[in-house]
């Protein structure tokens, strides 16, 4: 009896489905709040634009939650078609051989024209393999930017610092005007990874980890250590505010005007426009003049979309159709405008320019300009295993540097040692 009911229900369901004649594809993402609303809009637009596929977008929490959910679903052979994986988790999914279908193959198999050179330079190879084949489709791409409180800078009579040398001149004046000069929200991303990129320094052996998993981290170098020695000195002199590892706590200090300048993500722009009750501007990530060959382009942050393997050709075709829709200049421009994430293709950037968007809000262009700056040998990205835990190590050691529990040199020795231990483990796990 029960079986019969079930079969009847299945039959009704199947008929219902054929009536719609649309193949359903699922997309698990990590965009909540306002960003989630934009994702829903893009999904609805895609569904309205064609009738062959029906895309269902599901928010699975934050980046880590989404990745964990994807891993669990894949292991249970119940994976979605598309999953959003953040920058630091890219190595985990790309090195799990066969878990995903390279985006480039997927598009080419489904006769979607693909040319990697249509993507802006900072984005192009970040989620590619060592041969330059694109594995993950860049989605929400951001880059660290300096936000400044215009009134605070005017009060102190200083200009926006382009370099850290200029910052060191401005900081005492800002302090005299009653402000802590600077805070930033993500030490590993801003003051480690992007420090290396901005100064064109090698981050890890093996071509920043793209060529091999048998690699060593190169953080324990004088340029980076000197930077952190200066940061510690700024903190001790009251020029640098350290509000812990939480992103929000450091941003709040800027929103509440305790801190005159704050380094966050280009993707923070939209939210900041709503929360900050004062006039603020954006500028490029400062660099040390004379260190490496700064200034070079920064890395992107954010996340990309991966197509899980193990789905029917029909569903894969739907994924390709969606990726085609997503990379259209109009979609990218909409996404860029609503969220502050950078447009990932040159065509979308041109469209935004042509539409006069940057005349109307010039600050929105800084992120993409920074990513389009001249690239160097070490600015295309990194691919390091267990990098999420390496970031945890960095967070931990930054706490210790800032509260004086450890010297800068000791903290960097620990970072090097523990990061290399994690890289070894990753190599042993994934290389066979």
């Amino acid at each position: 009896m029960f079986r019969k009911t079930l079969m009847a229900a299945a039959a009704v369901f199947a008929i219902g489905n054929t009536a719609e004649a649309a193949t359903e594809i699922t997309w698990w993402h990590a965009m909540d709040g306002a960003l989630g609303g934009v994702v829903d809009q893009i999904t609805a637009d895609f569904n309205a634009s064609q009738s062959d596929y029906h895309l269902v977008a599901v928010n699975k929490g934050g980046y880590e939650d989404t990745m964990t959910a994807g891993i669990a679903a894949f292991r249970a052979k119940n994976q979605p078609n598309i999953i959003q994986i953040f920058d630091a988790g890219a190595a985990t999914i790309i090195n799990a051989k066969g878990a995903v279908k390279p985006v480039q193959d997927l598009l080419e198999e489904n006769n979607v024209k693909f040319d990697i050179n249509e993507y802006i330079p900072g984005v192009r190879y970040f989620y590619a393999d060592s041969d330059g084949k694109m594995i993950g489709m860049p989605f929400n791409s951001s880059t660290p930017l300096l936000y400044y409180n215009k009134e605070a800078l005017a009060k102190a009579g200083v200009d926006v610092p382009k370099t850290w040398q200029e910052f060191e001149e401005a900081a005492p004046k800002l302090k005299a005007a009653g402000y802590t000069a600077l805070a930033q929200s993500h030490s590993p991303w801003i003051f480690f990874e992007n420090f290396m990129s901005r100064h064109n320094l090698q981050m890890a052996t093996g071509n920043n980890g793209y060529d091999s998993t048998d690699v060593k981290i190169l953080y324990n170098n004088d340029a980076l250590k000197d930077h952190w020695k200066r940061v510690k000195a700024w903190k001790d002199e009251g020029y640098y505010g350290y509000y812990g590892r939480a992103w929000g706590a450091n941003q709040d200090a800027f929103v509440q005007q305790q801190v005159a300048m704050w380094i966050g993500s280009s993707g923070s722009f939209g939210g900041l426009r709503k929360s900050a009750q004062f006039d603020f501007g954006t500028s490029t990530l400062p660099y040390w003049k004379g260190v490496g060959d700064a200034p070079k382009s920064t890395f992107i942050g954010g996340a990309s979309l991966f197509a899980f393997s193990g789905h029917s050709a029909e569903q894969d075709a739907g994924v390709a159709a969606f990726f085609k829709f997503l990379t259209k200049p109009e979609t990218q421009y909409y996404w860029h405008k609503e969220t502050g994430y950078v447009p990932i293709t040159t065509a979308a950037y041109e469209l935004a320019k042509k539409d006069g968007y940057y005349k109307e809000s010039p600050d929105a262009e800084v992120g993409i300009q920074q990513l389009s700056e001249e690239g160097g040998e070490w600015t295309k990205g990194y691919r390091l295993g267990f990098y999420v835990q390496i970031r945890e190590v960095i967070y931990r050691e930054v706490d210790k540097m800032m509260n004086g529990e450890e010297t800068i040199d000791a903290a960097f020795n620990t970072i090097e040692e523990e990061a290399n231990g994690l890289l070894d483990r990753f190599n042993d796990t994934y290389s066979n």
Partner: protein
Amino acid sequence: MKRVQFEHSAVPYLFVAPQILIISIFFLWPAAQAVYQSFLLEDAFGMSSQFVWFRNFEDVLSSASWSRSAIFTVIFSVAVAVISITISLFLAVRADEVIRGAKSYRTLLMWGYAVAPPVAGLLGNMMFNPLMGDLYKAFNSFGFEFNHIQNANDAAFVVILIAVWKQVSVNFIFFLSGLQGIPKSVQEAATLDCKSAERRFWTITFPLLAPTTFFLLVINLTYAFFETFGIIDVSTKGSPGGATATLVYKVYVDGFIGADLGGSSAQSVLLMIMVSILTVFQFRFIERKVHY
């Protein structure tokens, strides 16, 4: 010769079956999986794996952050258990004495029980927010240089405070019912023999509460070991410098955020062993002193 034989009936087994099934599915099976995983190096998506014997355990035990976390867990658990039991015993004894409006007092004291650990963590986080937290401001206005963002001891204080606050109401309920279970006749007899209320408490009431106290000690240690995860994740996330990361929190960070299955399985196996030893110790050595 007549053999005594009991009738074996399937009925009792039928009654315990659901419980056994639940324990097997939700505890024994995952525990066995964890033990198995702890001997493997396997990529997160399960595409390849290899058997590595004790490599994961060696890596965990040789890591400085694990040792630090283990030490913190012990300090944290003992502090949470002892402090919350002490406070709630005091409150229960006082509430037991109240006659007028007793019900309202008791209800108010039990309220905290309804608060989930992550919510407690969130509340604590807001009260200790450096920019707007009232407790943060209050402590600093008393002249402490209180800064849990950077100072490890202050951070430990914050998580212990939240965890204790959350647990006091649970303990309170048990102590109160324990107190009300002490026969009136015993109390009256004690009052005739001894005038000092304090002495009566330590010689009569406290020993009679011993079973409750022992039970709560076990429950509270388990709580501090495992359930405070939500509090830590929402408030400090183990910072500064890993000073407030308990072992369970580390398992979560390495396993769920870091996708290192073997390493985090090895950590949970070690945790299982530690808790088993602790439980055996409690029942063998402390329970002996308890008179039911």
